[in-house]
């Protein structure tokens, strides 16, 4: 049963991932199953349609969920500031919302040390969010280290894709 749930979860997640990159007519249907309970408010400013969940609406900045980092760095770069602030404000305005921040690294080096590096990246995003109005208790920062690479190549472009923190809302 657990295994089945895990598989289900993965397929739901991959469904989510494909929504953010390739929006399609199926978006609404699929988001029914994954919509977080606290989505009713629609308080994020750029919501295009009241029927769309701002977190998954491809036209909403909140549908963007990844913050990328430089090699060996856990500094949140300026280009991700608006993204982080938007999520922080959503959390501030939706006090029941909870997020899991998952830090990731490229594949080079010790797995456990990379796990700690990924934690630093997630912690850096968490810190930035709390400075912008999210409450500490709404955010859990964890690390997946090098274990869940989005890009599976062994080159610089894959490594860059994997130096990343992802924002996942509870229920997703």
């Amino acid at each position, binding site marked *: 049963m657990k295994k089945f749930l895990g598989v289900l979860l993965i397929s739901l997640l991959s469904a989510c991932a494909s929504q953010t990159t390739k929006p399609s007519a199926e978006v609404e249907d699929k988001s029914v199953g994954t919509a977080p309970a606290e989505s009713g408010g629609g308080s994020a400013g750029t919501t295009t349609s009241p029927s769309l969940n701002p977190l998954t609406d491809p036209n909403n900045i909140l549908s963007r969920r990844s913050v990328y980092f430089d090699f060996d760095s856990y500094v949140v770069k300026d280009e991700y500031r608006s993204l982080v602030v938007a999520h922080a404000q959503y959390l501030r305005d939706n006090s029941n919302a909870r997020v899991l921040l998952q830090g990731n690294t490229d594949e080079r080096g010790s797995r*456990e040390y990379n796990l700690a590096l990924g934690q630093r990246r997630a912690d850096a995003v968490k810190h930035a969010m709390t400075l912008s109005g999210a409450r500490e208790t709404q955010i859990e920062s*964890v690390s997946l280290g090098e274990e869940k690479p989005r890009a599976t190549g062994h080159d610089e472009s894959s490594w860059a894709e994997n130096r990343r923190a992802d924002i996942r809302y509870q229920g997703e």
Partner: protein
Amino acid sequence: MWIHPRRFPQALALLFWLISSSPLQAALDIEIFGGGATQIPIAIVPFATEEKLAQGVTPVVAADLQRSGLFRLVDTTGLTPHEPTQVSYPDWIGRGAGALVIGSTVALPDGQVAIRVTLLDVARQARLASYSETVPAGQLRAAAHRIADMIYEKLTGDVGVFSTRIAYIVKQGKKYALQVADADGFNAQPVIEYTEPIISPSWSPDGTQLAYVSFENKKPVVYVQTLATRTRKAVANFRGSNSAPVWSPDGKKLAVVLSLMGGSQIFLVNSDGGGLQRLTQSPGIDTEPSFSPDGKHIIFTSDRGGTPQIYRMPVSGQTSRTAERLTFEGSYNVSPHYSPDGKRFTFIHRSGGRFNVAIQDLATSQVQLLTDSQFDESPSYAPNGKMILYATEVGGRGILSAVSSDGRTRQQLSTQTGDVREPAWGPLPKLR
């Protein structure tokens, strides 16, 4: 200060025994590179009637001894003594054998097999050891490993590790399996299998339990699983990440790394999950703890000095903000693991884009590089301190390798398919 690894010649030994021994349970193939300068020449005569058994004994013994790098097999063709009285010593002296192993197997009506083995010193023409045991036919490999341990112990003075087990992770497609196998790679058994990553297996000192990190719940959580019953328990599932479990030598506690209080810091937790206690306090990363054999110290990786280096601190029961830095060569030294005698540690050293297995002597601080491959990870000592098991990469695929602690002999252990990583060498069996 640096001693560079010898250049290893091409595969010196093509292992006929691997082909000739039963492949039915084979999970890992083993290739040996190099070889020590002072190998003991040993002749192992096939035991009487063992060819009638489903599993031969002497091929396993020979493979074990050869894998250690300390033995050279002497050809036995044409000579078939099974009793000491049948031994013609001049023949063996002529073939250059220093030691001779003879014996017999008898298949009993109840399915058991009676084994008798004798180890002889050829030069002194004397018996070094001799014993008999009766085992179920299904345990002939285990019996052979015990014979290899006995021979190794008599001829080298060190404890043999052929009856130990190893744990490792196999990634096959999208599946991850934590497996336990005999030290020669046979009898691989899955402990758990998941579609999410598993890392950092760690043996309890009595060999009955494994701690590991599973990502099945969207984040790393530390579990302890009892091998015999397959029951398991989350012993560190705190807010944030939970990882890098390692048992204290008395088996009562685990050191784990938690992000519970910010950063990645080392804590102690009872093996049932209670009694959380913080050990390190630094503004940086503290991870990969390893206990000294007496349990009084830990060594660990920390970036408190700007780059990841290895540090040591006493385990006093109190949180400590200070630790003694041990490594200074290079900008990346990680994954420390104490030797069983507590006098040195093995670790991964990065230099020019390569990640290699090294050892450092605690008294002299002398460092020795043991490998010259590209991506080595997760070194752990054999319980007799003579070999180091580690993960490496060949042709883009993860495999296990072992290197003798003097760097002279290396062997590859590889599965047919899949990525193998995160090896951990288990403890000596309790009753010998």
